[in-house]
């Protein structure tokens, strides 16, 4: 038995993060705009009295922004005492992945910033990028995911 991953889509790309990092998945609703936030922060949502920033992964990866549709989801992540939201184009599935099927050295395939990538896995007909999502959320200036 491998680890469970949440697979989501941004643009044409498929990405995965471990289920253990995810606290819940919600629709994109009631996001309040924050003028002082970084450009890739869409705003904040209030979950149970906690103010949680929502990061737009499209902007974070310097992709063109898209209209919000009913497929969009906000994945709420938890690390220690903090929670973060990430806006994705859609959540595809929850997947079991064996360690063996993950190739760490393949990171350069996508021409993506290596520190964001934990590894690459090939699932059926597409390539899955395993993200180090908390590195992606760090406040360093945005780095183009593709060159």
């Amino acid at each position, binding site marked *: 038995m491998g680890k469970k991953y949440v697979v989501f889509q941004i643009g044409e790309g498929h990405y995965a993060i471990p289920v253990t990092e995810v606290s819940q998945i919600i629709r994109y609703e009631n996001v309040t705009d*924050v*003028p*002082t*936030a*970084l450009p890739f*922060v869409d705003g904040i949502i209030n979950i149970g*009295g906690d103010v949680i920033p929502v990061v737009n992964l499209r902007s974070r990866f310097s992709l063109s922004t898209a209209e919000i549709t009913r497929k969009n989801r906000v994945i709420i992540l938890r690390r220690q005492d903090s929670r973060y939201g990430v806006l994705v184009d859609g959540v595809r599935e929850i997947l079991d992945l064996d360690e063996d099927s993950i190739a760490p050295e393949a990171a350069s395939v996508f021409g993506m910033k290596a520190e964001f990538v934990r590894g690459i896995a090939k699932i059926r007909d597409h390539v899955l990028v395993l993200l180090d999502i908390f590195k992606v959320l760090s406040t360093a200036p945005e780095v183009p995911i593709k060159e």
Partner: protein
Amino acid sequence: MSFSGLDEQKLLRAFLEESEELLEKLNENLLQLERDSSNPDSINEIFRLTHSLKSESALLGFARLSELAHRLEDVFDGIRSGTVSLSRPLMDAIFSASDLIHEIIARISIGKNDEDVESRSVIRELKQLAGLAPKIGTEGYGAVAPDETERADEGRLVLGDFEYSQIMEALERGENIYRLTVTVSEEAELKYPRVYLVFNKLEMIANVIQTVPNITVPQEDQLYRQLVVLFSSELDKEEIYKACSVDLIEKLELELWDETSIQEAVSASRGEETARSAASAHTSSTSRIEGTSIRVDTNKLNEIWQLVGELTIYKAQLSKLHDNVARQKGNESIKGEVERASDSLERITTEMQQAIMGTRMVPIAVLFNKFPRLVRDLSRKLGKKVDLEIHGKETEIDRTIVEVLSDPLTHIIRNSLDHGLEGPEDRRAVEKDEVGHIMISAHQQGGQVVIEIADDGRGLDVDKIRQKAGISREVSEEEVVQTIFSPGFSTKEDVTDLSGRGVGMDVVATRIREELKGEVEVRSEPGEGTLIRILLPLTLTILHSLVISCAGYYYAIPVQDIDETVRVLEEEIVIQEGSEVYSYEGNEMPLLRLGPVLCGPSEDQHNRSRERNGVVVEQRRGKVCLLVDELVEEEDLVIKPISELLNHRRLFSGVSVLGDGKIIFILDTARIMEIIETGGVDAI
């Protein structure tokens, strides 16, 4: 023989929590004893404390710790009975033993064990100085052994209604009722752990109704020579014997109770309870009252706090709903009911919030009680004579503040001793009492706690400070001395291991100001002494704030930072050296338009009305006027930490959610002052 994993964890946690309190009491009583070496109360208390430390650490398998506590116990047993006299060197050895105990417990608390701690030399010294011949086998408990009347009571079960109903329920389930008597051999050390093991094993296979003595509240080890357990189980006698066999238990007697013996025991208990309550009327005045508090994990309190916060939000939503209902026609009786329900909910929520707030508060004694020992050790090291006075220990303050405050306060006291107070000769030379004085006090004043540390030492050297910081003669002495709190300042010429190490008052001030949102100031009189005053908020979680709006968003400014709110006229804003200045009634102060800072340069354009709202914020650095759109209301805000992603310019100190779900950012006024000083909005 080992406890199940979970049990051990639980026991360990309980042990660490208890030992914290125990060590504090031990310390307190040792200091008391040092002042008055014939005080029987301290001697007895220390004996009791070392004794329970010995038993509890043995139960968890910390042999070194248990032995150390045991030797201390021996010494105090000797002192009690008059066979050991308390000399100065012995007192020092006792203090080192107590330090070692502290150290071992600190190790245990970070998950290490006590095995590689070197305790032999400390123990040898203790024994030699106390003149105690090494004891073999027996323990000197003479005086603690229960007297005859207590013995007669041993093992008698007292069955109240609760126990009776448990018995009846067990019988209905078809279980048997047993009475088990466990006897530990008289010579066995550590009786409590042994009977506890039996109890622990029994609990796995049976439903324990009562134990005598009560096993869950550890008492004197000697009381556990015999343990009587009443329990129900579906197993038969043989299976039970097998299940609870433990080494070094002298005797296990198991007795199956039938209906008649149950009835007899119950009625006997009823008669006895009446007799007991009559007897307790005159004994209660002498018995020790341990207080009615329990220990609660801070995380659990935070969780409750969180939930109450949520409740407040829904309460507000409900009252809004009620307002809507009230506006509609008809349904008069329902409207009345909704109103009453909504009002009650509001009252209860408010009270609940206050009650939970109260649980976060602890007396500042938890912090102050460390200082007598600190002052004792330091003054001996420095060869100074010091008398420490502490006032206002009962003053309550938020637990999280106490945690952060510990280091800065310790540092201030070290400084007073090291630099402030003179040695005995120097003091005699200036005709002062050769004993120096340090006074630590706390009291509540408005919404703040004031802590003062005063000494009657030599005071600060104003000239030296002036010279070092390069301050001109025109600046008053009162202002000059405040520079000891400026970053990078230290007047110390030679570095001692006491308050050297490069950590000066500037670090103290930064922690108090930034982490605790407090203030610190100093007053000094050459030759007379130094007074350091710290002002702290009662709590960091609720902040009385003024909510303002700016370009359509809401922000809050802590009321404690606000000097006044003003109406700013266009002609009162003047430009000086490229910056805007608010000038009124002869006052001048920097002016900052919040809109452009918070929402970008274009945000002030559409608000060119002739009269604007201004909030004058006052900080140590001076005053500044912030231009805002609207003053909304004053409100007690529950402050939560803000994510770095929302605060990369560090403009805010926290965030809060209002009753109606509105999100409010709390402005960090100190940071805003900094922005103005370092070149304005463009710099951030």
